[in-house]
């Protein structure tokens, strides 16, 4: 093969194109399709959000009326507050859990590969399954509470799932279970990329394990931490199936999240215009996270190129 290429340096552009056609098809067709979907449907949603559409899309212009209506609704306000709480608690706790798991796994333990797979496995489970399983586990009459009761501790109480104030934490728990393995994998890669000589140098300098982690290893994990936080945040903002399966926004509307509001407005109340407005608001929240991240990446890359 290589020798054939070497002996025919004057190959025509057409032959070259045919040879590389599979590559082009494989890369460009999906890329264009998904870009077209993303861009065209985003624009369409944006347009709908300014129309008085209800059950079916209609043309017309109502300005920001859909937005003000959505923003003023109690449903959206609760969803937004929940997003702030859920987003920050979930991102911080799953990153922390992932980091702790990664540090523990990095201690040259024997069953590392097995444990790594176990911790990563929840990621392979769909959110609907996670939500459903946790809804059973957290159901007081079915899951953990019943198990402890059956073991004899009858005064034990763990009913967050049906507690208005605590229900949002059940989503946090399930989401952490699902995705802290992912954070762990990224952190573990970061820990492994720390030059072993640096650790040796620190040992000779007289630093103990805690100081080595605090002063040398953890600071070098900053870029990975930011990546983990951004990926988890955009997951948190678009969370839908997990909540739908676990609490379905309840009890009442206590665990409402923006994506559920969009679904509710569009498909249950047939208010397409308002649903689209809520969706655009979600997109704006997402951009508020992703744009600073993109800017940070850009600055990092430029600095790296200059160094």
């Amino acid at each position, binding site marked *: 093969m290589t020798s054939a290429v070497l002996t025919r340096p004057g190959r025509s552009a057409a032959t070259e194109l045919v040879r590389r056609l599979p590559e082009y098809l494989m890369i460009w067709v999906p890329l264009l399709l998904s870009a077209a979907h993303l861009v065209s449907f985003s624009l369409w949603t944006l347009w709908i959000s300014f129309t008085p559409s209800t059950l079916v899309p209609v043309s017309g212009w109502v300005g920001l009326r859909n937005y003000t209506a959505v923003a003023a609704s109690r449903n959206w306000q609760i969803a937004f507050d929940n997003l702030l709480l859920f987003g920050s608690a979930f991102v911080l706790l799953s990153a922390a859990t992932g980091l702790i798991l990664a540090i523990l796994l990095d201690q040259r333990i024997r069953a590392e590969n097995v444990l790594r797979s176990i911790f990563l496995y929840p990621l392979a489970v769909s959110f609907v399954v996670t939500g459903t399983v946790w809804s059973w586990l957290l159901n007081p009459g079915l899951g953990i509470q019943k198990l402890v009761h059956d073991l004899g501790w009858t005064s034990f109480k763990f009913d967050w799932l049906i507690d208005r104030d605590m229900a949002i934490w059940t989503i946090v728990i399930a989401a952490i279970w699902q995705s802290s393995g992912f954070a762990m994998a990224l952190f573990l890669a970061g820990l492994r990329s720390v030059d072993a*000589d*640096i650790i*040796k*140098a620190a*040992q*000779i300098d*007289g*630093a103990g394990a805690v100081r080595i982690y605090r002063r040398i290893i953890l*600071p070098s994990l900053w870029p990975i931490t930011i990546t983990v936080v951004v990926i988890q945040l955009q997951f948190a903002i678009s969370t839908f199936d997990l909540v739908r399966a676990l609490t379905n926004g309840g009890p009442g509307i206590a665990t409402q999240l923006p994506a559920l509001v969009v679904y509710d407005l569009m498909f249950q109340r047939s208010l397409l215009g308002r649903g689209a407005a809520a969706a655009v608001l979600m997109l704006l929240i997402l951009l508020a996270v992703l744009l600073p991240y993109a800017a940070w990446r850009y600055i990092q890359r430029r600095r790296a190129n200059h*160094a």
Partner: protein
Amino acid sequence: MAALSIRALSKRYANLEVLKGIDLDIESGEFTVLVGPSGCGKSTLLNIVAGLDHPSAGTVEIGGRVVNDVAPKDRDIAMVFQSYALYPSMTVRQNITFGMECRRVAKAEQEKAVANVAKLLQIEPLLGRKPSQLSGGQRQRVAMGRALVRNPLLFLFDEPLSNLDAKLRVEMRMEIKRLHQRIGATIVYVTHDQIEAMTMATRIAVMHQGSVQQFADPDTVYRYPANLFVARFMGSPPMNTIPARLEAASDGPVVVVGAGRPDEVRLRLRGYDAAAPFVGREVVFGIRPECIAEGSRTFSSDAPVRVEAPVELVEPTGAETMVLLRLGGEPAMARISPDIRPAPGTSAAFALDTRRICLFDPETERLIA
């Protein structure tokens, strides 16, 4: 006083014996270079001295104290790594003071120590920078600063120059040597580069397959290599090692290369009494390239030894001309005057310095004389 004593030290990983009974005594103020090809165990030995790895058997003594069970930080050592191992999130100043910070040295004292070291290494303008903003040579200097500031009993260098480009390597080599001359520190320096070993060391330990082949000053290692491995490892190009026969003559032994051939070479040896038991036997005849020169060269006042030999290849380097020739049918490298360029395929006259010949036992590969 011995700054470092290593006794019967061995290291085994599962079935692999990395170090086989190492014994070394390093005096205070010496610059000892551990040199050998990769995988010879030199870095493992250094790590064991530093306390970063543990020996399977044997003891390590630093400054007269057995340190087998002493933590690296309490061994009174400092180490410079091949990758520099600077702490990436700290400034140069913090990199240098980190050790003192761990040992709870007073702030004012830290400042003074940093100022001294920075002045010595001329890195004052870099103190506020991060390692990622430094060039390779600057990082190297900071790594040395971090070691120097500790003022330890023993400095350990693990291939500190191998990540630098050739020009910078030569500069840093001189700088490290100058530093050693100035502060008189005891240094153990690991490298695979025999030139670094020859140029910097006060004593060289040549290692191969987990044991020390020879431990002596550079001149001795070069002039009297303990065995064929050392002869072929030290020197660039290495010593020519040629199968030969030792025969008796009226006034001492004669080395015969290519016995029975029309181009047979006979070299009379003087002062090689130790070779007497090998008369009439096969030996390995070793001669450094610089001991084979153009025919007009005189090496000593004695009657010059000259041979006619076919030239195979000529490599002019500018400073000298390297010639691959056939000595009694065996290939040998010669180092001749730069402006002499014998034509390949022809025959030329060469002068040999027979006073600096080495003879090795082909069985044990050890130096006979």
